[in-house]
């Protein structure tokens, strides 16, 4: 039927989309769901841990009987056991293999112990520990040179089982319910995670010193002949792809030399390091060789991230060490980084999300480099040999040096904490808030945050070190702390919540009382001296649909001022007598329109800059609201955007933005809107809010707990944390004011 086109009114839309008057849940749906859930197993749960613990508590006789039963089940159903491998269960906060994942990124999605890490406990194992543990469900599986894999419950400091499979140099990998590791018996051994019983062994006729790589339904290992074990260039090596379910070789290829480090695999590409300084890439499915790349004299474990392979060339002589970034597909060099000394750089932790990698050097530096071009972001000398790759979790990089475990701020390299250890450590594994690292002196160190560390009483066991007192110390404070001059809570000011504030040219501080559409005005000493609530045509709607209190205000030198009336999608202009003298804006993406006008600034150039939060653009107006141009953004929408801008005396605009995979950063635009430079990658966490300092510097808040002082070159000059602030402004005399998540206005004394 042909029909006129009805105007799409809100009323019509709501009537059309309203649910029918008789909408009943089908009677049988509930029963159908109930039946389904009884057929559906839940994912990996803490129950697995409890089973292991419960097993460990059983009397010996019952354990033997249980093991016998399990063995019978195993013999009777070998194929079924094999099928346990598939699909790979991935528990939350697990570190399933050396460096956390098969790409060997060393970046952990879950939480680490954080910048306040402390020793939870230390255990001695009956042999050196030269490998990294795998961790899942709160249990660490760690090999010692006594030949055993030990399962240690991290929450309870209890060893659940140990399995002697003659392991030494291979870091274990978790595959389904199995711990898989290369052995000194020239085979691959799989141990049941729950029982510690050997599930199967697969002869390889060569040593597997690296950690098995697991991808899809296959395991990949690199082998070496006996004569190459000490890292000599003699001997031969192979790469072997193994079907995980059947333990049969899918394909096998020779390598240019023996391989004693771990394979990395990502997508369809397998990268195998060799002890003769050549890395070889293979098609993971077929074993077809794709490319070779030389990293003399000895190639460390590769890292695959962001379409690149990071290859560290280890040089025991300390003369030719370097780190290369190679294109994953072509094998072509993208960049390389070498120390002036030529000293070895070990395999890095590579955070593709922030585009930063973190590498340690044998001469004791940690360097952060940009993944794109290898440019150094920061460097932190720790003064002790770093022979193991670092690990990143959250905003912290964890580094193991001879004699210490370190936590560094990933953004700045500032040392947050160090915990002394005895001996040369392996690469730290992190999961479930724990950091676990062993040393060549045979001690397993387990670090946690304050909560973990105080709640674990080391078990009374001959293998446990005496009750340890955490010796953690903060060795490098960032800068002098900021001290409150005064603080006022929202309640002090008769407000429900507060967020926006600004300092007027007369030194008074205007705090937006968004729910009431008014401003509370404080003097520089924090005394409430006035309130102002525009009415009539100037009435403000400053509460966004998400109930966040908005209300940015910007002052012009002549005392007039502008308010971003966010939920009315307009800007109001008032004279110095607080009389409305103009307004502009409407809802939309077009020039001069707003979706959510969030930030507003009057620049030294006498122009008004309005930041539209939802379109990530800065619209520039003259003082009367005449639209001039748009900087950044446009009409395109971006999910995560920006908040406010800083304009310097030359009309340069600094805009903080990020999201959709783009790290938060600051972009400097020239007055005509062209990009001058980008700065601060990998420093910031959303939300980021900027404020101009008195001498051209910029204060930038990050998240809800950090404040950065950035100089005119874009370099971070100071960092403060733990302030609980979100927004800062600098007053006419250089005083610093903030509002924070907990609803407090503060004035700080700058150091």
């Amino acid at each position, binding site marked *: 039927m042909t029909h006129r086109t009805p105007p799409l009114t809100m009323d019509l839309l709501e009537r*059309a*989309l309203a649910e029918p008057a008789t909408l009943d849940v089908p009677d049988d*749906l509930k029963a159908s769901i109930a039946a389904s859930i009884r057929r559906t197993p*839940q994912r990996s*749960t803490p129950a697995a841990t409890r089973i292991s613990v419960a097993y460990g508590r059983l009397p010996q006789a019952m354990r033997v009987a249980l093991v016998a039963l399990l063995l019978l089940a195993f013999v009777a159903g070998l194929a079924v056991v094999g099928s346990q491998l598939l699909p790979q269960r991935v528990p939350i906060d697990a570190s399933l293999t050396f460096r956390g994942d098969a790409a060997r990124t060393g970046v952990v999605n879950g939480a680490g112990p954080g910048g306040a890490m402390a020793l939870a406990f230390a255990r001695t194992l009956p042999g050196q520990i030269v490998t990294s543990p795998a961790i899942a469900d709160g249990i660490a599986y760690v090999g010692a040179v006594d030949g055993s894999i030990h399962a240690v419950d991290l929450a309870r400091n209890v060893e659940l089982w140990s399995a002697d499979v003659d392991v030494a140099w291979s870091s274990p990998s978790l595959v389904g319910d199995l711990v898989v590791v290369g052995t000194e018996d020239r085979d691959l051994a799989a141990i049941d995670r729950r029982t510690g019983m050997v599930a199967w062994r697969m002869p390889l006729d060569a040593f597997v010193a690296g950690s098995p790589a697991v991808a899809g339904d296959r395991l990949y290992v690199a082998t070496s002949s006996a004569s190459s074990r000490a890292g000599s260039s003699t001997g031969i090596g192979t790469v072997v792809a193994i079907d995980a379910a059947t333990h049969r070789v899918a394909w096998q290829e020779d390598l240019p030399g023996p391989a004693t480090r771990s394979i990395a695999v990502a997508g369809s590409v397998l990268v195998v390091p060799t002890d003769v300084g050549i890395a070889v890439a293979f098609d993971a499915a077929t074993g077809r060789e794709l490319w070779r790349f030389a990293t003399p004299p000895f190639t460390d474990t590769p890292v695959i991230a962001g379409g690149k392979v990071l290859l560290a060339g280890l040089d025991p002589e300390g003369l030719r060490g370097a780190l290369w970034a190679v294109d994953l597909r072509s094998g072509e060099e993208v960049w390389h980084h070498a120390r002036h000394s030529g000293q070895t750089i070990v395999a890095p932790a590579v955070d593709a999300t922030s585009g930063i990698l973190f590498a340690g050097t044998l001469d004791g530096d940690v360097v952060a480099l940009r993944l794109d071009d290898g440019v150094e972001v920061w460097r932190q000398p720790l003064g002790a040999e770093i022979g193991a790759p670092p690990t990143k979790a959250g905003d912290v990089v964890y580094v193991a040096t001879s004699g210490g475990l370190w936590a560094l701020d990933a953004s700045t390299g500032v040392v947050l904490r160090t915990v002394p250890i005895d001996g040369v450590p392996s690469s730290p594994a992190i999961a479930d808030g724990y950091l676990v690292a062993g040393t060549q002196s045979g001690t397993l160190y387990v670090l946690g945050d304050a909560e973990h560390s105080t709640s674990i009483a080391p078990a009374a066991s001959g293998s446990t070190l005496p009750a340890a007192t955490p010796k953690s110390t903060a060795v490098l404070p960032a800068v002098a702390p900021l001290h409150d001059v005064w603080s006022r809570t929202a309640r002090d000011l008769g407000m429900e919540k507060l967020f926006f504030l600004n300092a007027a040219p007369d030194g008074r501080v205007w705090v937006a009382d968004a729910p009431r559409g008014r401003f509370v005005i404080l003097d520089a000493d924090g005394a409430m001296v006035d309130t102002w609530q525009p009415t009539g045509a100037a009435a403000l709607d400053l509460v966004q649909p*998400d109930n966040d209190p908005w209300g940015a205000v910007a002052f012009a030198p002549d005392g007039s001022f502008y308010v971003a009336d966010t939920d009315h999608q307009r800007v109001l202009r008032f004279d110095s007598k607080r009389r409305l003298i103009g307004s502009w804006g409407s809802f*939309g993406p077009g020039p001069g329109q707003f979706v959510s006008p969030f930030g507003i600034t009057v620049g030294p150039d006498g122009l008004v800059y309005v930041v539209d939060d939802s379109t990530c653009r800065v619209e520039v107006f003259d003082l009367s609201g005449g639209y001039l141009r748009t900087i950044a953004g446009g009409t395109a929408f971006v*999910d995560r955007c920006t908040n406010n801008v800083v304009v310097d005396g030359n009309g340069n605009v600094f805009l903080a933005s990020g999201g959709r995979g783009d790290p938060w950063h600051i972009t400097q635009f020239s007055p005509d809107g062209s990009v001058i430079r980008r700065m601060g990658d990998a420093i910031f966490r959303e939300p980021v809010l900027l404020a101009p300092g008195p001498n051209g510097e910029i204060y930038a808040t990050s998240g809800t707990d950090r404040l950065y002082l950035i100089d005119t070159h874009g370099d971070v000059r100071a960092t403060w944390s733990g302030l609980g602030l979100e927004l800062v402004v600098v007053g006419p005399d250089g005083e610093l004011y903030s509002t924070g998540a907990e609803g407090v206005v503060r004035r700080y004394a700058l150091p």
Partner: protein
Amino acid sequence: MTTNARIGFGSAGDVTLVEQARTGDADAFERLVQTRLERAYRTAFAILRTDWDARDACQEAFIAAWRELPRLRDVARFDAWLDRIVVNQCRTLLRSRKVRVREISIDAYPDASVELSGASPVEAMADEDLVRQAFGQLSADQRLVLALHHGEGRPVAEIASLLGVPAGTVMWRLYRARRALETVLREVSA
């Protein structure tokens, strides 16, 4: 506008049920299903507009919730978490169907009219049918925000929380979705 009664997560009993269910207690999970199925079904129907699709979405959503429940760390957020699973399931279902789904340019048409239609009751019903017909041709994301806001009457802030995006994003998506709906409405009524 229809505004559904919201099921709160207020009682200690609910918390206990979630705790029990996340350790594998299927009976406890069944009791949670009993009190939440109606809300889930209504949400699914608002988005999908057919009984069978809403059934499918609920079935899959509750199974997914059961399977993933051990991963829910904050049991107090169970309802919000379940809501999100239901909506995601609807989106998955829409995307898996080969329905006519397009991204529609919003730049080629003027702003939506906000005038009253003044139609007769019969015409009004026909108009509603046309809108539903047009709605069925929108993309999954466009349907989601329109159904949740205009169909279910959920506030922008709640939708933002549900979809994990800022409120401004939801406003923008609503704006785009309404413009797209207008465009399709012209086509289906031509």
